[in-house]
C-alpha cells in the first residue's frame, strides 16, 4: 500500500514537469489563424503514477489568433489617419502597413486618398484586409500639389487629407458618448513597431516620442527632464519651432480633437517643418506633453522612405499588361 508521503512526493515531482511540458507544447505550436476568434479548451490527462493513483488533470485554454484581434469595450480606440496617393508603390506600401495594423487591437484605420474619388485599388485592398476602416478621398488642388517628384517641404503633402479625417471624426463622433480614443497620423511609408501603438493608447492630451531618420539625424526626440516633462527638442533643424517634432512622433487624445473643433493643420503660409506645430499649438502647451517610449529614449517608429522604382523597361507604350494590378 503506497504511503501518503509517496503519493505526495510523486505528485510534487510530476506536476512541475507536466506544467512545463504543457507550456512548451503551447509555445512550440504557432496558433492557427482564422477570421473569427475561436477559443478551444483542452483537457490534458496524465496518468503518471501507479495505476489508479496520482492522476493529474490540466485544463488548458488555447486562444486562436484572429486577425484583426477582437474588439474590446475597454481599450481606447486608435484612430490611425493615413493619407495616401496613387503611385507604383502605393499598393505595396498599404499592404505592408495593413499587415502591421492587423496586429493592433481596437484600431480604426482612416485612409484618405489624394484623389477626386475613392479608387478601386484602395477599396479592394481595404476590404480584403478585414480591418475596421473608413475610406475617404479628397483631391489636393493643383496649385498645392508637388511638382514632379520633388519632395518640396514648402508644399505640405497630405495636409488636406489629414484635415478631412479630422473633420470626419468631429462630424461622426460625439465627444460625450464615444468610446475613448487616440488619433495618430501614420504616413504609409513609415515603419511602426507594434509597441508604439500600445504606448500611445494611454494618451490623455498629446503624447510624444522619438522618431528615427528625420531631420538629417539618426533620430529626433523630445527633451525630457527629471520630472518627466518635455522642455525642448533634440533636433538640429530649427529646434525653436513650437513643436519640433515629426508627424509620426505624436498622438492626440480624441476628446481633445473633438472639443477643439477649430484646430486643423494650417494649409497656407506654413514654413517647412511647421505643419505639426500649426495643429499642436491649438491643442496643447509644451508642458502638457506626455513623453512615452521610456521617457523618449526608445525608438519605436522610423521615418523610412521607399525608393521610387525604376520602370525604364516598360518603355513609352508600356510593356506589361495594364490589367494586372500592382
Amino acid at each position, binding site marked *: 500500500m503506497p504511503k501518503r508521503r509517496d503519493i505526495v512526493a510523486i505528485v510534487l515531482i510530476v506536476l512541475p514537469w507536466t506544467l512545463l511540458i504543457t507550456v512548451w507544447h503551447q509555445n512550440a505550436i504557432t496558433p492557427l489563424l482564422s477570421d473569427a476568434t475561436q477559443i478551444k479548451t483542452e483537457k490534458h490527462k496524465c496518468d503518471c503514477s501507479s495505476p489508479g493513483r496520482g492522476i493529474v488533470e490540466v485544463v488548458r485554454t488555447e486562444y486562436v489568433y484572429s486577425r484583426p484581434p477582437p474588439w474590446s469595450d475597454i481599450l481606447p480606440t486608435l484612430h490611425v489617419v493615413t493619407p495616401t496617393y496613387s503611385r507604383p508603390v502605393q499598393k505595396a506600401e498599404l499592404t*505592408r502597413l495593413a499587415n502591421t495594423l492587423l*496586429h493592433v487591437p481596437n484600431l480604426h484605420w482612416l485612409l484618405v486618398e489624394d484623389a477626386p474619388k475613392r479608387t478601386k485599388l484602395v477599396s479592394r485592398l481595404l476590404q480584403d484586409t478585414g480591418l475596421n476602416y473608413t475610406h475617404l478621398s479628397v483631391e489636393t488642388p493643383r496649385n498645392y500639389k508637388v511638382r514632379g517628384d520633388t519632395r518640396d517641404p514648402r508644399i505640405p503633402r497630405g495636409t488636406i487629407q489629414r484635415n478631412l479625417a479630422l473633420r470626419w471624426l468631429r462630424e461622426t463622433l460625439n465627444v460625450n458618448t464615444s468610446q475613448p480614443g487616440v488619433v495618430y497620423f501614420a504616413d504609409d511609408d513609415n515603419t511602426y513597431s507594434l509597441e508604439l501603438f500600445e504606448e500611445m493608447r494611454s494618451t490623455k492630451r498629446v503624447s510624444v516620442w522619438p522618431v528615427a531618420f528625420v531631420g538629417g*539625424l539618426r533620430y529626433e*526626440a523630445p527633451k525630457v527632464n527629471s520630472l518627466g516633462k518635455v522642455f525642448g527638442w533634440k533636433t538640429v533643424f530649427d529646434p525653436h519651432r513650437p513643436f519640433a517634432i515629426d508627424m509620426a512622433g505624436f498622438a492626440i487624445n480624441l476628446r481633445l480633437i473633438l472639443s477643439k473643433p477649430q484646430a486643423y493643420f494650417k494649409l497656407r503660409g506654413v514654413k517647412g517643418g511647421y505643419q505639426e506645430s500649426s495643429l499642436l499649438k491649438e491643442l496643447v502647451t509644451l508642458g502638457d506633453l506626455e513623453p512615452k517610449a521610456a521617457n523618449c529614449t526608445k525608438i519605436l517608429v522610423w521615418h523610412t522612405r*521607399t*525608393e521610387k522604382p525604376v520602370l525604364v523597361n516598360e518603355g513609352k507604350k508600356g510593356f506589361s499588361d495594364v490589367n494586372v494590378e500592382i
Partner: protein
Amino acid sequence: MVSRTFKTFEVTEFNKSSTLEHEPFLKCIISMNSAPVIICLTCDAFHCFSQGDPNWLKPRGVEQRNEGLRWLREHRRASLGGASEQGIVYFADDDNTYSLQLFQEMRNTQKVSVWPVGLVGSMKYESPMVKGGKVVGFHTGWRPSRPFPIDMAGFAVSLHLILSHPDACFDGDAPQGFLESSLLHGLVTMDELEPRADNCTKVLVWHTRTEKPKMKREEALQAQGLGSDPAVEV
C-alpha cells in the same frame, strides 16, 4: 536580435509589416550581417545564427542564403524522413513587401512554385507566362534567355527537394541576374514549375527598396563629437 545600427535597420525593415507574425507554422532563419532571409514553413521554433562578414566581391546574400540551405540540410539530417521533410523554403529579402496571401499560395508547393513579382527588372512586374496550367515562358524585360528569369522573391522550393539535392546551392560567380537560375536549374525544369497567384496573374509580392536615410546632420555632428547617443538603438 541584432547589435549594430546597420543590422538593426536591415532586420527592422524585414519586420516592417510584422508580416511573418501572421503566419502559422513558420520557422524563420535569419542570417546576421545580411539582408536575405530564408523561411521554412515548419512547426519549429525560431533559429538564428551568425555568418561572417560577407565577401563583397560576390552578389549580396549568396553566402547567407547558402548558409541557410546548409543549416537546413544538417538540421534535417538529424531527424530522418517523414514529417521533418514537410516544408517550403522561401528566400525573402528584408526590404521587399509581402502580402499575407502569398504565404498561403506557396504552402502546397510540390517542387518549385512560381508567381509574379511587382516592381522588379525595371518593370511594373515580371511574371512566368502560363498556358494550360503550365509555365511556358517568362514575361521579363531583361535577359529573357536566362534559364529562370525570375526574381528571388518569385519562387519557393519544397524542403524535400532541397534535401534530396544536397549539392544544389546558389553560385556566387553567376553573372548578374543568373543567381536564381544557378539554384533552380539543378532542381527543376521549366515545365515542372507550379504556377500560383491565379495562374500568375496577380501580384502578391513587390520588390520594394528602402531609401538610404539622409543623415547629413548626424554626420556633421559626429565629426564634432556631438553625434546622437549611440546607446539609443535605431
